[in-house]
C-alpha cells in the first residue's frame, strides 16, 4: 500500500508541477516581450519609459517567485530567482549596456531551462548571477548556499526515478502524438487508407506505451486510445475514405489531445476526449455505458481528491436503464472485492485505514454515478458511507471488529439492494442498518423518512417506468428544422451533401421492406441509415431530423432484433416518415426551416408505434407480419457493409458549371477549327511540295540549256584556245541558273522540314485532342446525377396516385445508375410525374376489372432509363388497358377537331392525345384528369429538345418512349452535303454507312425504289426529301446511303448527296424561343464558321405525322393553347408554407404563381388571371378575408374560386371566411389529398 501511496504522491506532484510550469511559462513569455521593449527604450534613451518597463519586468519575476513559493517546489530555483530579483533591483536602477547583455543572457538561459524541462538543472542560472559584471553579483557564499539548496532539492524530490519514469512515458506519448499529428495533416489533404493505417499505428503505440508502463492515472486514457485505434481499423476494414466530417473529427481529437497534453490533470480535458469518441460518425462510437465506465475508471484513481464537488460530465438519462444498474452493480462488486480482505484482517488496523482512505472516494464516485443514472436514494447511501469513512480516518478511530462488521453489513445490504432495487425488504433493511447508533453519523428518523421514498421510488425503475417516462406526445419543437445560431458551416455543408442521398436511400430501403420480397438485410440497412441520419442531424443540430429518425431507428431496431417485418399499418407510417424525411431534406436544402405541414402527425404516428412496440411489441394479429427465416445472427448488424461511400463534396453553383461546360464546348469547336486549318495547310503544303519539285525539274532543264548554250558560244569566246575541260567558263546566265538551283534546293529542304514539323504538330494536336476530350468528359460528369436521385420521388407519386384511385400498382425503375445531366433530369421530373400519374389513373385498371381480364390485381409500371448514342431514352410501360383509339377518335369528333367521315391512321389518332386539353375522360379526376393533357408533357419534352412516341396495345398496356438529346456536349456527328448546305447527322439509330456499290436499287410495282443488300431489302428515303428540300439528283443515280433503324425497329436506307466525314461537334440549342423543330436536335458551328443543323433522322422518319388532318379552327386553337396550364395563385406570407403548396400544386400539373399578402396578390393579378386561389388567413397589409372580399367584389375576378388554408379552427373565423366568399375553408395541418381534391372539384366546376 505504501508503494501505492508514493505513486499517488508522485502523480500529484507531477500534475502540480505541470500546472506550475504552465503558469511560469506564461509569465516568462510576457517577460520576454517586456525585455524587448526595455532594449528599445534603452536604445532610444527614453529613461522614464525604461524605468517603468524594468519595474514591470521585475514584477513578472516576483510573480514567478510567488508561484514557486506557494507551491513549495523547487526551492533551489526559487532562491535563484529571488537572488536574481535581488540582484536586478540593484543593477537595473542604473543599467549599463553590459548589464543589459547579462540580463538578456539570464533571460535566454531561463528560456533554455524551460525548454529542456530539466527542472533540477539550474546551475547555469546560478553561474549567470555570479557574473561579476552585475552591480551586485552573487557572493561566493550565496552561490554555495544555493548549490546546497539545489542538492537538497534533489534529495527532497520524492522518488525522482518514478518521476523520470513518468517523464519517459510522457515523452514517448508526445513523440507518437506528434507523428500522428503529421499524419493527420496528410489525412486532411489526401485521405487515403495507408495514411489512416499509419495514424492508427501511432495511436496504438500510445495505447501500448500506457499498457506496458501501467501508469495508474493513464489507464483510462490507454483504453480511450485503443478505442480510437479500433475505430480507425474499422474504417480501414471498410476501405472507406475519410470524408470532411471525419477529418474534422480527427482534427478535433488531435486538438483536444494537445490540450490534454498541456494539462493532463484536467478531468475536463479527458472528458472532452471521451466526448469526441461518442460521436456517431465513428464506426464504433463510445456508448453511454462505456462512458460511465471511463469516468469511473478515471475518477477512481484520484485518491487524493478533496471533498470539493467536482463537475463531471453527467450522464442523465430520463429513464433508469437496467443495463446501467448492472454496470453500477459490477463496479460496486469490484469495490467490495477490494475491500473485503482488509475488512476481514482484524489484526492489521492500519492497513484497513489505508484501504478505506484509498477507497472512500470510490464511494463518492459511486454516489455520483448512482445519481446520474437516477438512483437518488442509493446516491445518498453511498454519501452516508463515505462521510462515515472520512470521519473515521480523520479522527483516528480505531476500527474495531464491531465497526468492521457494521461496515461489511452495509456493503452486503447495498449489494442486495442493487441486485433488486424494487425489493422493499432490502430497502427497509438498509435503512434500518443505516439508523444503527454505531455509525458516527447515523440516520435520524427524518433522514430515514426522506431516504426511504428515494430508495422505494425505484420501484418504477423497471421497463414500465421507462415507458412512463417516454415521450408520448410529439411537440412542435420535435419537428423543428431550424438550424442552431452558430452552426458549423463545414458540418452543415457535409450534411447538405449527404442528406439527400441518405433520405433517398432510406425511402428506397423502406419501399423494399414493404415490398413482396423483403429481407432482413434491408431492415438492417434502414436501421443503419436512420442511425446515420440521427447522428448527422444531431451533429448539426436539426431537431426535426434527429427526433424522427430516433424513433424510426427504435422501431427498426426492434424489427431487426425480433426478425419481423412491419405490419401493413406500420408500413404505411414508415413510408410516410420516409417521405416526410425527404421533404424535410428538400426544405433544408433550399435554406428554409419550416417543417412540412404533416410532419407533426407523422412524428406522432411513429412515436405511437415506438411506444406500442416498446410496451407490447409489434401486434401479431396482422397477417402481413412475417417471421423471418433463417434467424439473424447477432453480429449481422455490424457486418453489414456500407452502401454509400462517403467522399468529400463541395457545392458549386450550377451557373459556374454551365460556364465550364460552355468553355469546354467552345474549346472543342476551336480545336476542330484548328484541325480543319491544319488539314488545309497540310494539303497546301503537299501542293507546294509538288510545285517545288516542278521548279527543281525546270531549274535542271534550264541548267542543261545554259550549259549547251555555253558550249555553242564557246568558239566566240576569248578563251577559245582552251578546251572546256581545261578551263570552265561561265556566263551571267549560268551564275543565275546556279543560284536558282540552290534556291530551289533550299526550298525543297524547307519543305521537307515543314513536312516533318507538320507531322509533329499533328501528333501534338492528337495528344491535345485526347486530353481535351478527357477534360470535357470530366467537366460534363460534374453535372451528371444518377437516376436514383429521382427514383423515390417517382415512387412517392405512384403511391400517392394509388391512394387516391384505390388501385394497387408496383413501380419498377430500371437504370437507377444511369447518369443523366441534372438539368435534363430536373426538366424531366414534371413530365415523368404526369406520365406516372396518368398511367395509374388512366392506364391501370381497378383491381376488379383486372381480375375480370385475368390480369394480376397488382398493376405494374416499368420506368426504364438508358443511353442511346447521344440520347437519353426513357421508357414508361404499363400493363393497363392501353390507348383506346375509338375513344380518342370519338372525343376528337365531339370536340370538333376532326370531321365524322375523316379517316386517320393509328399514329394520327394517337397523336391527338398530345393536343392541348385533349382528354377522353368526361370528368376531371383528382389525379390527372384536370383539363390538361399529354400536351404539357410534350411541351416540356420539346423544351428539352426531346421527342415522345407511343405504342399501345389494347388491354395490354401503353409504352411511352422519350428521347432527349444531351445538349451542351460535343458529339461525334457525320457531316453530309445536302444541296449547297452542310448538315450534321446525329448518330441516333445510325447503324452503317453504305457505299453506292454496296446495294442494288430495285424498283417495285408501285414504281417506288427499295434497296437490296445481300438478302435484306430496305425501304429508302432521300435525306433532302425528309428535310423538305428539293432532291438534287435523279432517282437513278446511286448515292451513299445511311442505314438507320427507327425506334420501332424498322430499318431504312437514307440517301445523302455527299459524305463529308465525321466531326466532333458541339451541339447548341437555338435560343429560348425555339424549343424544338421536327427532326432538328440543334445546330453546330463548323470550323469555317458555317452553321450546320444537327439532324435526327429517326425522328424525321417516324414523326413526320403532322396535324395537317385537323380542321382549321382546331389548329388555331391548338397554336394558341400550346403549353398553357391552368394557373393557381398561392397567397401566403410564410415562405415555407407557400413552397409546400406550390410544390404540391405543380406536381398536380398547375402553373403556380405566388404572392406574399393580399396587396401583393392584387398586384400580381394585374398581369394574369388565376383559375384558382389558395389563400392564407392571417397576412400582413391585407389579410385573406379582406383579399377574398376584394376579389369577390370585382366583376372580373368574382368567379375565381378561393380556398383558405389557416391554423384558425374556430367557427367564428370559418363563418367570416365564408361570408367573404371563400369556397373551401381548410385548417392546418391538412392532408395533401384533401387539398388536391378541393382544387380538382373547384376547377372542374
Amino acid at each position: 500500500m505504501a508503494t501505492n501511496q508514493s505513486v499517488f504522491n508522485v502523480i500529484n506532484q507531477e500534475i502540480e508541477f505541470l500546472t506550475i510550469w504552465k503558469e511560469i511559462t506564461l509569465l516568462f513569455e510576457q517577460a520576454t516581450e517586456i525585455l524587448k521593449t526595455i532594449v528599445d527604450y534603452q536604445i532610444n534613451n527614453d529613461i522614464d519609459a525604461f524605468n517603468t518597463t524594468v519595474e514591470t519586468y521585475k514584477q513578472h519575476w516576483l510573480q514567478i517567485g510567488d508561484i514557486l513559493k506557494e507551491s513549495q517546489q523547487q526551492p533551489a530555483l526559487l532562491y535563484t530567482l529571488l537572488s536574481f530579483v535581488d540582484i536586478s533591483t540593484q543593477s537595473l536602477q542604473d543599467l549599463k549596456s553590459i548589464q543589459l547583455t547579462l540580463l538578456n543572457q539570464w533571460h535566454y538561459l531561463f528560456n533554455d531551462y524551460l525548454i529542456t524541462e530539466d527542472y533540477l538543472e539550474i546551475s547555469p542560472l546560478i553561474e549567470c548571477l555570479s557574473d561579476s559584471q552585475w552591480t551586485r553579483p552573487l557572493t561566493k557564499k550565496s552561490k554555495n548556499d544555493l548549490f546546497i539548496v539545489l542538492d537538497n532539492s534533489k534529495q527532497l524530490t520524492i522518488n525522482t526515478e518514478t518521476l523520470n519514469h513518468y517523464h519517459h512515458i510522457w515523452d514517448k506519448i508526445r513523440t507518437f502524438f506528434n507523428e500522428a499529428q503529421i499524419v493527420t495533416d496528410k489525412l486532411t489533404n489526401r485521405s487515403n487508407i495507408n495514411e489512416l493505417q499509419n495514424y492508427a499505428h501511432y495511436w496504438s503505440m500510445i495505447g501500448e506505451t500506457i499498457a506496458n508502463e501501467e501508469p495508474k492515472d493513464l489507464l483510462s486514457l490507454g483504453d480511450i486510445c485503443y478505442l480510437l485505434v479500433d475505430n480507425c481499423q474499422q474504417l480501414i476494414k471498410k476501405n472507406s475514405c475519410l470524408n470532411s466530417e471525419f477529418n474534422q473529427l480527427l482534427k478535433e481529437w488531435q486538438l483536444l489531445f494537445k490540450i490534454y497534453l498541456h494539462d493532463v490533470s484536467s478531468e475536463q480535458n479527458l472528458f472532452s476526449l471521451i466526448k469526441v469518441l461518442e460521436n456517431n460518425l465513428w464506426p464504433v462510437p463510445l456508448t453511454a455505458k462505456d462512458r460511465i465506465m471511463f469516468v469511473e475508471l478515471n475518477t477512481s484513481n484520484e485518491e487524493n481528491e478533496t471533498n470539493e464537488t467536482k463537475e463531471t460530465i453527467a450522464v442523465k438519462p430520463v429513464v433508469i436503464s437496467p443495463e446501467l444498474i448492472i454496470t453500477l452493480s459490477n463496479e460496486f462488486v469490484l469495490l467490495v472485492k477490494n475491500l473485503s480482505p482488509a475488512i476481514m484482517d482484524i489484526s492489521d488496523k492500519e492497513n484497513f485505514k489505508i484501504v478505506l482512505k484509498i477507497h472512500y472516494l470510490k464511494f463518492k464516485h459511486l454516489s455520483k454515478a448512482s445519481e446520474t443514472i437516477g438512483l437518488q436514494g442509493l446516491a445518498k447511501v453511498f454519501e452516508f458511507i463515505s462521510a462515515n469513512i472520512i470521519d473515521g480516518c480523520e479522527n483516528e478511530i480505531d476500527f474495531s471488529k464491531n465497526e468492521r462488521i457494521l461496515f461489511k453489513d452495509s456493503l452486503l445490504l447495498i449489494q442486495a439492494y442493487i441486485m433488486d432495487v424494487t425489493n422493499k425488504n432490502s430497502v427497509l433493511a438498509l435503512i434500518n442498518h443505516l439508523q444503527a447508533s454505531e455509525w458516527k453519523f447515523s440516520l435520524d428518523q427524518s433522514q430515514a423518512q426522506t431516504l426511504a421514498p428515494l430508495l422505494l421510488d425505484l420501484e418504477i425503475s423497471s421497463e414500465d417506468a421507462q415507458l412512463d417516462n417516454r415521450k408520448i406526445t410529439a411537440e412542435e419543437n420535435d419537428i423543428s428544422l431550424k438550424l442552431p445560431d452558430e452552426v458549423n458551416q463545414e458540418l452543415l455543408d457535409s450534411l447538405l451533401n449527404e442528406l439527400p442521398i441518405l433520405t433517398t436511400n432510406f425511402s428506397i430501403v423502406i419501399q423494399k421492406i414493404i415490398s413482396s420480397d423483403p429481407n432482413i438485410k434491408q431492415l438492417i440497412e434502414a436501421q443503419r441509415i436512420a442511425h446515420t441520419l440521427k447522428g448527422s442531424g444531431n451533429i448539426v443540430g436539426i431537431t426535426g431530423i434527429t427526433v424522427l429518425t430516433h424513433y424510426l431507428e427504435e422501431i427498426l431496431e426492434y424489427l431487426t432484433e425480433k426478425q419481423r417485418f412491419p405490419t401493413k399499418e406500420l408500413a404505411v407510417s414508415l413510408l410516410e416518415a420516409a417521405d416526410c424525411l425527404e421533404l424535410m431534406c428538400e426544405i433544408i436544402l433550399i435554406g428554409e426551416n419550416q417543417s412540412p405541414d404533416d410532419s407533426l402527425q407523422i412524428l406522432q404516428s411513429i412515436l405511437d408505434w415506438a411506444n406500442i412496440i416498446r410496451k407490447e411489441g409489434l401486434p401479431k394479429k396482422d397477417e402481413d407480419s412475417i417471421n423471418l427465416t433463417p434467424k439473424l445472427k447477432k453480429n449481422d448488424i455490424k457486418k453489414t457493409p456500407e452502401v454509400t461511400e462517403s467522399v468529400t463534396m463541395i457545392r458549386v453553383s450550377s451557373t459556374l458549371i454551365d460556364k465550364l461546360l460552355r468553355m469546354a464546348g467552345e474549346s472543342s469547336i476551336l480545336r476542330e477549327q484548328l484541325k480543319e486549318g491544319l488539314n488545309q495547310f497540310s494539303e497546301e503544303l503537299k501542293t507546294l511540295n509538288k510545285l517545288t519539285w516542278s521548279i527543281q525539274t525546270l531549274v535542271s532543264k534550264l541548267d542543261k540549256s545554259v550549259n549547251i548554250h555555253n558550249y555553242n558560244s564557246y568558239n566566240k569566246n576569248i578563251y577559245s584556245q582552251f578546251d572546256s575541260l581545261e578551263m570552265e567558263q561561265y556566263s551571267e546566265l549560268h551564275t543565275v541558273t546556279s543560284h536558282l538551283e540552290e534556291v530551289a534546293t533550299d526550298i525543297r529542304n524547307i519543305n521537307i522540314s515543314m513536312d516533318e514539323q507538320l507531322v509533329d504538330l499533328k501528333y501534338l494536336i492528337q495528344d491535345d485532342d485526347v486530353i481535351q476530350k478527357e477534360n470535357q468528359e470530366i467537366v460534363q460528369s460534374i453535372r451528371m446525377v444518377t437516376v436514383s436521385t429521382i427514383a423515390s420521388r417517382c415512387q412517392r407519386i405512384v403511391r400517392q396516385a394509388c391512394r387516391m384511385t384505390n388501385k394497387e400498382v408496383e413501380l419498377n425503375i430500371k437504370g437507377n445508375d444511369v447518369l443523366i445531366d441534372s438539368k435534363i433530369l430536373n426538366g424531366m421530373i414534371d413530365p415523368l410525374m404526369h406520365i406516372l400519374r396518368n398511367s395509374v389513373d388512366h392506364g391501370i385498371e381497378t383491381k376488379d376489372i383486372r381480375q375480370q381480364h385475368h390480369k394480376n390485381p397488382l398493376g405494374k409500371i416499368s420506368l426504364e432509363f438508358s443511353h442511346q448514342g447521344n440520347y437519353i431514352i426513357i421508357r414508361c410501360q404499363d400493363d393497363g388497358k392501353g390507348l383506346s383509339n375509338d375513344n380518342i377518335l370519338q372525343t376528337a369528333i365531339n370536340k370538333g377537331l376532326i370531321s365524322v367521315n375523316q379517316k386517320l391512321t393509328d399514329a394520327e389518332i394517337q397523336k391527338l392525345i398530345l393536343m392541348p386539353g385533349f382528354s377522353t375522360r368526361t370528368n376531371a379526376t383528382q389525379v390527372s384528369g384536370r383539363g390538361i393533357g399529354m400536351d404539357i408533357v410534350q411541351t416540356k419534352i420539346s423544351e428539352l429538345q426531346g421527342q415522345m412516341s407511343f405504342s399501345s396495345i389494347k388491354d395490354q398496356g401503353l409504352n411511352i418512349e422519350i428521347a432527349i438529346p444531351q445538349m451542351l456536349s460535343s458529339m461525334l456527328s457525320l457531316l453530309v452535303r445536302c444541296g449547297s448546305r452542310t448538315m450534321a447527322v446525329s448518330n441516333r439509330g445510325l447503324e452503317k454507312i453504305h457505299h453506292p456499290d454496296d446495294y442494288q436499287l430495285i424498283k417495285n410495282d408501285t414504281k417506288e425504289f427499295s434497296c437490296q443488300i445481300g438478302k435484306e431489302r430496305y425501304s429508302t428515303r432521300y435525306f433532302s426529301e425528309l428535310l423538305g428540300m428539293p432532291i438534287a439528283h435523279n432517282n437513278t443515280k446511286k448515292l451513299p446511303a445511311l442505314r438507320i433503324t427507327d425506334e420501332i425497329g424498322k430499318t431504312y436506307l437514307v440517301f445523302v448527296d455527299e459524305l463529308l466525314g465525321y466531326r466532333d461537334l458541339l451541339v447548341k440549342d437555338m435560343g429560348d424561343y425555339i424549343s424544338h423543330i421536327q427532326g432538328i436536335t440543334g445546330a453546330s458551328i463548323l470550323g469555317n464558321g458555317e452553321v450546320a443543323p444537327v439532324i435526327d433522322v429517326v425522328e424525321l422518319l417516324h414523326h413526320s405525322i403532322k396535324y395537317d388532318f385537323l380542321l382549321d379552327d382546331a389548329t388555331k386553337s391548338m397554336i394558341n393553347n400550346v403549353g398553357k396550364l391552368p394557373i393557381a395563385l398561392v397567397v401566403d406570407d410564410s415562405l415555407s408554407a407557400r413552397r409546400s403548396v406550390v410544390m404540391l400544386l405543380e406536381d398536380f400539373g398547375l402553373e403556380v404563381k405566388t404572392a406574399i399578402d393580399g396587396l401583393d396578390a392584387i398586384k400580381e393579378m394585374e398581369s394574369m388571371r388565376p383559375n384558382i386561389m389558395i389563400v392564407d388567413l392571417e397576412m400582413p397589409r391585407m389579410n385573406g378575408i379582406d383579399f377574398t372580399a376584394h376579389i369577390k367584389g370585382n366583376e372580373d375576378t368574382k368567379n375565381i374560386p378561393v380556398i383558405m388554408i389557416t391554423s384558425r379552427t374556430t367557427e367564428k373565423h370559418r363563418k367570416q371566411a365564408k361570408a367573404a366568399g371563400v369556397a373551401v375553408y381548410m385548417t392546418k395541418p391538412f392532408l395533401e389529398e384533401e387539398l388536391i381534391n378541393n382544387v380538382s372539384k373547384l376547377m372542374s366546376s
Partner: protein
Amino acid sequence: MDLETEITDLSLVNLLDKATVNQQDLRYGFQIGNLNLIYDIHLSCELLKNIPVYSIPNTPKWMLGLINLRGNLIPVFDLEDYFGFEGLDNQYQLWLVLGKGSKAVAFRVKDYPELLSDLTKETIIPKLIPKIENHIIAVYKGEKLWLELDKESFFLTLGKMVCI
C-alpha cells in the same frame, strides 16, 4: 468569309452622351410593313449588316434560319413575311438583333431604328391585326402611332409556331 459584316451598337451607353432627354421617355422605333413598332431603350440591341443566315429545314419560310453572332446561334425571322406584308427585297440586308444570349432574336429591317422621345401614351388601342394584337404592351403617339412590342410574348409565340 467574303461578306463584310458591319455591326452597329445601339446600346444605351453610346446614346446617353448624346441624348439629354429623360431616359424614361426614350424608345427606339422601327417599321415592319405598315406597323410602327417601338421597344424599350434599355433592351439590348444591335444592328448587323451583310451577315450570312443559315437556313433550317422544316421551318416556315418566315423563319429565315440562324446567324452565328460571336458563337451564339440566334434565330432570324422575316417579320414582313410573317405579317403578310410585301416582303423586302434582298437588297435590304440589315438585321436588328434584340436581346442578348439565349434571349436574342433577329429580324430584317428596312432602315436603322429611330430614337423617339416626347411620346404620349394613348389610352385607346386601335384595331390591330390578329397576329400582333396580343403582344402590344402600350400605344404611343408621336408623329405617328407607335405600338410598344412585348418582345418576350411575341417571339415565344413565333417560336412555338416554328416548332409545331
